[in-house]
């Protein structure tokens, strides 16, 4: 139950953030996790409309495809993260195969590929696949991100890059060629197995099947 796990993180962030909000400054109205260096683990929250999730029950140890719960895609549930914030979220999923889908509302190819990522989640969640969506969108596109994810009925958690679609954002997330779509697969120990990236000079690009096969192979290990 990825959603419940992330909700815990959100709860922790929200509580710490509210406690420490007197000393924090943020231009964003959205939840923000982990700004600063990866080691600092500083946590900021200056949201005016932040909804603090209520107490959550313990997630069941196992899940089935039928019991997959759609992730909350309200604005408050899409944390805005920098690289260190992302790394914290990723670390929470150790023991699972993680597929990260870097996408953006402005990327037509990403939006076309996104339903395949959703299908992978539904198909393999029970086998230990976690998917994290990272929207490489600017602040002014946040509402559009929320709308798109709601339409897609995503069964996994989503983040948005704090630096949006800037060059800095692509560099920090190590997206080759600063080009989307890009997906990255991590093994159960958190090591990168493969990055699926666009090679603008190549005639052929990675396909949905390439991603699906790599996911299956990683789950079988």
């Amino acid at each position, binding site marked *: 139950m990825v959603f419940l796990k992330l909700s815990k993180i959100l709860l922790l962030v929200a509580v710490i953030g509210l406690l420490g909000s007197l000393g924090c400054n943020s231009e964003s109205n959205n939840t923000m996790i982990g700004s600063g260096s990866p080691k600092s683990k500083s946590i900021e929250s200056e949201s005016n409309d932040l909804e603090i999730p209520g107490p959550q029950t313990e997630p069941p140890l196992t899940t089935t495809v039928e019991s997959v719960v759609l992730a909350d895609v309200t604005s408050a549930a899409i944390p805005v993260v920098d690289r260190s914030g992302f790394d914290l979220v990723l670390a929470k999923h150790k023991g699972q195969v993680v597929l990260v889908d870097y996408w*953006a*509302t*402005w*990327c*037509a*190819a990403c939006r076309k590929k996104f339903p395949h990522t959703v299908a992978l989640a539904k198909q393999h969640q029970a086998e230990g696949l976690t998917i994290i969506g990272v929207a490489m*969108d*600017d602040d002014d*596109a946040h509402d*559009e991100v929320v709308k798109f994810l709601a339409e897609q009925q995503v069964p996994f958690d989503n983040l948005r890059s704090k630096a*949006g*679609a*800037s*060059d*800095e954002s692509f560099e920090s997330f190590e997206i080759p060629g*600063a*080009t989307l779509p890009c997906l990255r697969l991590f093994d159960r120990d958190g090591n990168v197995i493969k990055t699926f990236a666009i090679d*603008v*000079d190549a005639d052929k690009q990675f396909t949905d099947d390439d991603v699906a096969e790599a996911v299956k192979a990683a789950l079988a290990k």
Partner: protein
Amino acid sequence: MTRIRRWVECATYFVVGAAVLLSTSTLRAAKFNKVLDIGKPAPVWSDLLGVDDKRHSLSDLKASKLVVVVFASNHCPVVKSYERRLIRFVDDYRDKGVEFLAISVSQRATDQLPQMKVRAVGSGFNFPYLIDPSQKIAKAYGATHTPHVFVLDQQRRVAYMGKIDDHLDESKVTERFLRDAVDALLAGKSPDVAETRQVGCEIEYE
């Protein structure tokens, strides 16, 4: 009968072969542009509505030495990153007889004329920002991304097409393709680099 059939077959092959040769010579595409090649006559736009509520046509710009047209959109962050560079380009080249304009063919809600007007005012556009809901003009240019830029020479042939420069982050730019092409044309030369691979957000054709 057999002889006649052979003659008919032979003539058919000849006609088909000639048609193929003709079509490849007239529709020859460039390295990155699948529709248009350098040196070809620029497709003409007529009566496209701008954020100034006026209609704009290529034929209005007869007095200009060069015309630079960029396919743009509100929603694309790559276009946004280039806005300041484009505004400066217009400031630097307007007095040299270079006309610049942007055309959007996006059908997204964020790219409609009222939103384009907001962007043009907010970003301080010093050039016409036009909309073509039919998307025909972008198709005719073989535009695939925003921003995709085309430089038209005095005879209104395509003289440069592709990207504006070589980096999204202006501080890291080393090759200013658009400025170099325009400088060369103003000096009566052909651009050293006439085509580059366009980058940005894919244009969604309906």
